[in-house]
């Protein structure tokens, strides 16, 4: 198997890289859609970890867990897009730094 020749550390590095990309996106972008994508990246970084460890230990638990995470991500996207639509309708824009009126 090709996969078995790849050590677990590589997967972890990949996962960390994807996670940091997502985090970077959240910290620097102002567009709500980019936010959503960044969050997806972070979630999937966690998924990579789960699958990698699952594979490493030879059990299926991590992979099954990943399926759940994906379902959760889908639900989160649905809500996220809903929020973005409302945001656009109210502010004619999807810039997340603009609407700050909920603070107090």
């Amino acid at each position, binding site marked *: 198997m090709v996969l078995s020749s790849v050590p677990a550390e590589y997967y972890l590095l990949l996962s960390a890289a994807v996670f940091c990309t997502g*985090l970077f996106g*959240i*910290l*620097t972008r*102002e567009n709500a859609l980019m*936010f959503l994508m960044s969050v997806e990246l972070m979630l999937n970084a966690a998924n990579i970890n789960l699958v990698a460890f699952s594979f490493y230990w030879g059990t299926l638990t991590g992979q099954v867990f990943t399926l759940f995470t994906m379902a959760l991500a889908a639900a989160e996207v649905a809500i996220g897009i809903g929020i973005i639509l409302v945001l656009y309708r109210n502010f004619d824009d999807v810039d*997340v*730094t603009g*609407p*700050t*009126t*909920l*603070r*107090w």
Partner: protein
Amino acid sequence: MVTVAGIYAYAPAIAALPLASFLVALFAGRWLPKEGALAGILATGGSLVLSAVTLVELVLTGEGYDERLYTFVAPAETFDLGFGVLIDPLSAAMLVIVSLIAFLVHVFSLGYMNDEGEPGLPRYYAGLGLFSFSMLAFVFASNLLMAFVFFELVGLCSWLLIGHWYREAAPPSAAKKAFLVTRFGDYFFLVGLVGVLATFGTARFAGEGGFPAGPTPVSALIHAATMVAAGVFLLARMYGFYALLPTVLAIIAFTGGFTALFAASMAVVKDEIKQVLAYSTISQYGYMMLALGAGGYVAAFFHLTTHAVFKALLFLGAGSVIIAMHHEEDMWLMGGLKEEMRVTYLTFVAGSLALAGIFPFAGFWSKDEVLFETLVHGLGANPLLLGGYLLGLSAVFVTGFYTLRMVMLTFHGDPRTDAAADPHGVGWNVKFPLAVLGVLATVGGYLNPAPLAKLTGAEVDFLHRYLDGPASEELLTSAHHYGDLTHEWAGYTAGSVAGGETATMLGGAGLSLALALAGAGTAFVLYRGPDPDRHTEALGDLRTVLVSNYYQDEYQVWLAEGLTLRTAIAADTFDQGVIDGAVDAVSSVSLFSGDRLRRLQTGVVTNYAALIALSVLLGLAAFAVVGGWL
């Protein structure tokens, strides 16, 4: 558990029939001939027959009946709550009394309400039906919870019926007063119910405050057979508990004697015929309380029975007079009615002589037995009972006086108004109940002529034997069982003056009869002429006090406005100022600091994300240091 005898299975129907008439009158009364009166007469007549049959069955078989109909909470769990039927001599006799009075009141109402074209008849008959139902169910209730439920219903019905003429000024206010007084009693009933065996107190069911404003037949029902009787009946029902408590018994007896005199004194100066009767009711219930407190269980029930008869008679007689007088109730505007209203006059006099306790009418025998029981137990070294006896004895004179005054003013002398000179005739539906009750008031005393039984040795004290019968034996409600209880626990022993029991009895009876005759004679002499003077005016200031009912109403208003309202306002000020102030002060600290703290928020999502990321990093670093990764 007593075995079930055939006819007893129908006992719940005694109460269910008036319930049916209530529903019929309420929903269909408008379209029925007589607007529901016939349904009510049929139903209460049926109840009367059924209760009479039940009574006969009880006497013949000597077996009571104790059956559970419905269970809320099973005895196995903490409380035993349910509905049931208890038929013992006490409740069987009471069922007959209540259904008889209810039946006659329904018949009388035909004359008093229907023939006079009163409005709201279906409502009236529905109220009467519900009233009869509640009272009958209260009587055969097998436990306190059920008794409480139906007592509440009785209170509700009295409110409904007293306030029947709700468009006028006085009835709604009287209804409200009656309701509040009832609620006050109910409150203690509830306390007693909850504390079942622990809390016995409150002889408050003697009930103060008159109920003067309802339709007259309603007064007859309330005063004779239901509302007011309910308190005494409850006390008799629970006599097994009270008999164990000498202090409570003595207080009940003394309060009873005091009530007898207190209420009678107010009846002396009243000018309205129904008011005289209302205060006389309170006074007579005082006698019953006196008897119960003095260990005269049979005497109390005897007086309850005879009083139910003659007081219903008097109220219905008053109703008849009021019809004749075109709804005038002031006795000073009557006079000379005896020629025109023969039946009413004769029956009313029979009732009055019974009330005054004149030999040989019913009231003489029962009142005498009450006083005799009190006297012998008082002489058996119980000074509080002797005090009660003296009060009760004085009330005999007063009772004789106000009763005869009422009769003289209403029926004798010359007519003082046009209405009295030409009274409006009354029909059979008025005369029939009066005649039945008149006969009963005359001969009712022979139900239990205890003095005759003692003198001749003949077994004529039927009521005593009945209440002591085998049916009560099994259910532990027999008269001698209660006698044993009062003797053992309350230390009641019979004493007598020189000459033994017979002399005490004859002396007591002679004394009370002499006092009654003296009172009646005084009134007769004073109010004899064709145009009597207002002799009570001579009492001066005392009369003012009596007419104002010892300022009880003023006192109650003061209690409400002067005391309760002021206390409430002060408490409100304290609540608003001190308690609310403290709470507000504490919360203002939170409000202020919260207001300052929330300025930290930026509302920019990116900032929060950065903070979270930073915190995670810091957390990682902390783990690294503490966990020793570095």
